[in-house]
């Protein structure tokens, strides 16, 4: 029992928290891939931007980071629409891979702006150590993990409501299933594209803030997560927002649990190689089931 509690406290629960971060980021990558037909390489840097926006509110106005989160989400959403209008819109009719190169440029621009404005030092939202919160028996969870998971559930529920009930959400799912069919049935595709960036960018900003809370804040906090995000989007199935959430959670838990000493006393996978777990999952999916578990699209 104690071993199980240790396993959950140290590996499984943190894995779920990390999985929530991946899920929030991967939903945007999956939707953008399906609707705009390109892999958005600057997504990690949009996450970083959101994290730093929240940091500014925390540092200058003394807000709690969880309050700043709301404005950071708004900032990330608006910044994404702006980036799309300035950088990606001229490429709507170009082959998708050209936009990927453009997203390389966006990645450089966003990251160097962050480095210019906020510097390159490692920052923290709050200092000091907090005791984990006892749950049942020996089970304990860090406060930040509880908050990350609860807020992520709220965000996922709102996303579900938006995608299943609102007209725009339905249009978005229609376009991600089949863009041409959506267009000839009279859906205003440019509006759907704007909403895709609002949703994807907002969720990315939330993921970035959570990533900053979970560890530390630095200019490559989002870039470091890009690989697990892609893995999560592919695992869930491109164009399937719910798949991306499941994929994100699966990759997050797999990465943390893989560092458990399954054989002998040493971690099975050294913590420095967590990202290799995500890469391994991604490669396996590409070989055996590129459509992902939720039967998404292979473009």
């Amino acid at each position: 029992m104690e071993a199980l509690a240790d396993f959950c406290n140290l590996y499984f629960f943190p894995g779920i928290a990390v999985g929530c971060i991946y899920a929030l980021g991967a939903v945007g990558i999956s939707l953008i891939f399906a609707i705009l037909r390109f892999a958005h390489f600057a997504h990690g840097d949009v996450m970083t931007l959101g994290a730093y926006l929240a940091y500014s509110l925390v540092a200058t106005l003394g807000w709690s980071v969880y309050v700043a989160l709301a404005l950071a989400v708004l900032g990330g959403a608006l910044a994404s629409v702006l980036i799309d209008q300035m950088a990606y819109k001229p490429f709507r009719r170009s082959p998708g891979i050209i936009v990927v190169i453009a997203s390389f440029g966006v990645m450089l621009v966003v990251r160097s702006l962050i480095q210019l404005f906020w510097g390159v030092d490692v920052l923290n939202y709050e200092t000091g150590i907090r005791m984990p919160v006892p749950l049942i028996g020996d089970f304990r969870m860090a406060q930040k993990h509880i908050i990350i998971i609860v807020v992520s559930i709220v965000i996922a529920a709102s996303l579900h409501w938006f995608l299943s009930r609102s007209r725009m959400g339905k249009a978005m799912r229609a376009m991600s299933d089949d863009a041409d069919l959506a267009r000839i049935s009279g859906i205003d595709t440019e509006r759907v594209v704007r909403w895709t960036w609002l949703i994807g960018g907002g969720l990315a900003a939330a993921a970035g803030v959570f990533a900053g809370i979970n560890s530390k804040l630095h200019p490559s906090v989002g870039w470091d997560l890009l690989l697990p995000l892609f893995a999560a989007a592919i695992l869930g199935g491109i164009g399937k927002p719910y798949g991306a959430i499941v994929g994100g959670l699966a990759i997050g838990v797999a990465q943390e649990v893989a560092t458990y000493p399954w054989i002998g006393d040493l971690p099975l996978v050294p913590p420095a190689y967590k990202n290799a777990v995500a890469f391994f999952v991604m490669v396996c999916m590409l070989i055996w089931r590129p459509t992902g578990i939720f039967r998404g699209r292979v473009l």
Partner: protein
Amino acid sequence: MDMQLFGLIMYAISLATMFGIYGVLCLGLNLQWGFAGLFNAGIAGFFAVGAYATAILTSPESPNYLGGFGWPPLLALPIAMLLSGLIAWPVGRICLGLKGDYLAMATIGISEIIRLILKNEDWLANGTMGISTVPRPFESLGQPWGNVAFLGFVLLVMAILYLAAERAWISPWGRAMRAIRDNELAAAAIGKDVVRFRLEAFVIGSMVMGLGGALSAMYFKFIGSSATEPLLTTFLVWVMLIIGGSGNNRGAMVGAGLVWLIWSGTELLTNRLPAEWITRSSYMRALLIGILLIVVLQRFAKGVLPEKPPRRIDG
């Protein structure tokens, strides 16, 4: 000789050597993107494999990492290329049947993991300290003649690659490659093995990138995790090829020269900035390169020397 003039000449030699190394990398990327339309987002990884292989094979023996084996530098070059190709092959096998974006995701993944391994495994490559005893060919000739000779060697490698790439461009192999790039279905319909052709372009291109890494390790006499940053490898090389003109071997080299001039020229400018700005100047250069890439893609997507349409046979 006048000290200032000597410094200027040495600076020109270093500029030209870097141009040659980036020219090699651009020719390699042009094989993948210009010929076959393959998006390689992990140039840094293949560069690192070539560079570290050279460093381990040629440096004198050390207790801190694998080897060094003290090989003659020229012998290490083919091994560096071979290793890069060996890593590219399975990646290509898995991804080349899918849309280009999947190759981009997989290459960025493999490249980050290669860099992770080289950074974390101290026994292999001395971890973050890197290897700083890589011999450079001709260095026994002293300054400046050793540098001139090495510059000549780099330019010779680039020239050979250029001639080979030009020959490949007009060969049936190059024509099939462009046909696949421009219309995969039509090329498959006339019996071209699409995945195999792509795999060839991808592996050969990655081998050339490994060669570029090897030359770079020799030139700097050092390789460490800072030298394989994607900014200086993956991104810069992409910007060079796009600006120079993808699908044009000469364009690839012109792009390497132009962008490297801009990159090092801005360094001269930013060094005159007030002290508090100098530390941030490298971010301003990255910003500039990013904006340049987006603007060129939007406005002048064909680059300085655009791809030439094939000559008509009926004249």
